[in-house]
């Protein structure tokens, strides 16, 4: 499946400074389509900052974040190498360019909501951000806002009449599908804030998936999960990659999860990339063991070896 391994997200020389603090320093990496790319590193390494730059929550100080989105209708038509078109797009002032079978975007030129809406990047948060006072189903319906709202002049639709009804039925079906997928279908009408912690984590992933993303960015999805739950999460993420054509960028501290699912691992420390490779490469990388795990942390080394 060579076409699947085409670059999806290319980050070039990305720099993000907060005053004197350089959180991300001239970072380069590439995430490929159809893969799970893990970002690991000690606390304060700049992982979440990188996420916020990619999803448009921060405006990066310098560098380029490029994303390709093959058309969902014609997979395979998109070319594997779009570097040339990317250079051309970078020289222009535009934010995106249409290619045969897809579209490429320069995310650093786009607002956060456009990145979700047009480029198809969805994300979850380290500290869960659900609409707590709304029901589980409503959370997934809000996620489909842009598909539901329809054309700008559809005034009847704005009030919930006319063509809106068909769109809403489709949205409910999508919601039903994802709720079923994460095992929350029976709790669809409950308030999201009333769910137990593990279910809230799953709901956040389902909500992100309801936006129909190309790239799913997960910020520590296994934090606070018990071993059984994190095992289920692993299975879910693999299935998202294999069955639903989603590429995943994941920040995770739980090494058993990272090692089990990652096709590709990027290690950050103090805003700089210190290693980049397959999970197997990373496991043996001296710099990683020294910088990230610390020599004393044997439990994690054991987990990596596992």
């Amino acid at each position, binding site marked *: 499946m060579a076409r699947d391994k085409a670059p999806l997200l290319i980050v070039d020389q990305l720099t993000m400074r907060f005053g004197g603090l350089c959180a991300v320093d001239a970072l380069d990496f590439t995430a490929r389509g159809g893969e799970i790319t893990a970002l690991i590193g000690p606390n304060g390494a700049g992982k979440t900052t990188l996420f916020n730059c990619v999803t448009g929550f921060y405006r990066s100080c310098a560098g380029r974040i490029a994303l390709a989105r093959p058309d969902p209708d014609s997979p395979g038509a998109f070319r594997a190498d779009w570097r040339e078109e990317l250079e051309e797009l970078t020289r222009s002032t535009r934010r995106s360019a249409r290619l045969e079978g897809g579209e490429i975007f320069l995310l650093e030129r786009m607002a956060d909501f456009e990145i979700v809406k047009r480029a198809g990047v969805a994300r979850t948060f380290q500290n869960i951000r659900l609409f707590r006072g709304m029901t589980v189903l409503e959370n997934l319906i809000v996620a489909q806002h842009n598909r539901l709202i329809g054309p700008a002049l559809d005034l009847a639709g*704005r009030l919930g009449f006319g063509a809106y009804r068909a769109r809403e039925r489709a949205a409910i079906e999508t919601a039903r599908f994802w709720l079923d997928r994460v095992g929350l279908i029976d709790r669809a009408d409950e308030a999201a804030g009333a769910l137990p912690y593990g279910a809230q984590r799953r709901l956040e992933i389902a909500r992100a998936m309801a936006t129909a993303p190309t790239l799913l960015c997960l910020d520590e999805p296994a934090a606070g999960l018990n071993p059984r739950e994190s095992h289920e999460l692993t299975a879910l993420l693999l299935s998202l990659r294999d069955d639903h054509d989603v590429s995943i960028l994941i920040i995770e501290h739980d090494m058993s999860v990272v090692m089990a699912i990652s096709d590709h691992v990027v290690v950050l420390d103090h805003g700089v990339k210190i290693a980049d490779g397959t999970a197997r490469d990373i496991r043996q990388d001296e710099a990683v063991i020294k910088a990230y795990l610390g020599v004393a942390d044997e439990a994690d080394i054991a987990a990596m070896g596992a």
Partner: protein
Amino acid sequence: MEESLTPVRSRSRLKDALTGAAIAGAIMFGLCFPILAFRTDQNFSNELYLLSRWPAVAFAVGLVFVLRFTMLLRAPRAARPQAPPSPTLAGALQRLARYAGGAGVLALIAFPLVMVALLGPAGAQKWIDNFGIQILLYVLLGWGLNIVVGLAGLLDLGYVAFYAVGAYAYALLATYFGWSFWLCLPVAGLLAAAFGVALGLPVLRLRGDYLAIVTMAFGEIIRLVLTNWTALTNGDAGISSIPRITFFGWPFIAGPNGFAALFGLKFAPVHRLIFLFYLILALALCVNYLTRRLRKAPLGRAFEALREDEIACRSLGVDTVATKLTAFALGASIAGMAGALFAARQNFVSPTSFTFMESATILALVVLGGAGSQLGVALAAIVIIGGSELLRELDGLKQIFGPAFDPTQYRMLIVGIAMVGMMNWRPRGLIALRTPSIFLKKPKLVVGALAGEGRG
């Protein structure tokens, strides 16, 4: 429960209660000392002399002491766990609410006719105007603000500015250009919506307290402009003799071209008020219907999602800028139309009608009613506005408290006590339950404690 307490514990509780009550009494004394204890008055030769009122101070301090003491004695020392209202009780309330809405509308439709039948055309005027029209105007304003505060979670303390814009829009357009009310009503709404967007743009990045302060300042700016731009607005003197509302062109006058002659009725000034009442009622019902539809449409859900978590909204591709501006514009346009109706009712507008106190009152209706609840806001308007109007009518109390007693002076005190009580017992307002906008199997009400307040 009382029996199970050991004597030692109950004695310590008694001691705690006494201490607590003494502290409360001391605080009350500190408050009373500058306010209540001394008063300056003038004697016959216009000299100031100091009047001390120690019995009043003693009464206030004693009252606080006794109340606090009984409160502490009754409640266990450890804070009771805040039990959320039980869903079954809540469900019963909600079922009741479903009928209350319909019954309320019927009662409102019947209200002016019943009043005329009971009190005659002249006697009914006061009730239709002071109670009916005034309460309905506040219901309209409360529902408008409910979109901004209750749904979108944007704390707006300058809402009265849009009310003022609508009122002056009608006053100026009608007096200067002779535009008819029916043309001015939508224009007032649109103009207020434009002001809503104008306010929304600079405050897009602000949330919670910061937003509240800037919107409050905006309200004051509008009021000060209206006060000081005397060439246009006639300043504090206001604009008088605003054309009265007509029945689609037929004025409410005694002559042969009037409304009464048209329908072969005997002329009575109350006709105009009844018409205005039904007009505001119709507008309020439209607003209510549209808001309920909106809640089930993507935009309304985006409002609520914005209240719950703005960052999550952005992560899901919701254009928060457009959503916020729409919320401000919608809320403002309702206030603008209410303003036009207000000007049509009074025939006179001046900046004094649009002080911060008005914004605070409207916000109080939304908060007391339960943010997001249409019925709650309407009930709060009836209780707060109707209640304080009703106090004016309680002349009978003079026979108990003496002829110097003026119940209207206690209006704000009673409203204040009611608010403190509400915030104590029902901090989320009268109707603190959220009905989901969509459901798979069965709608389950969401307790208000889970819903966000727009603090992001």
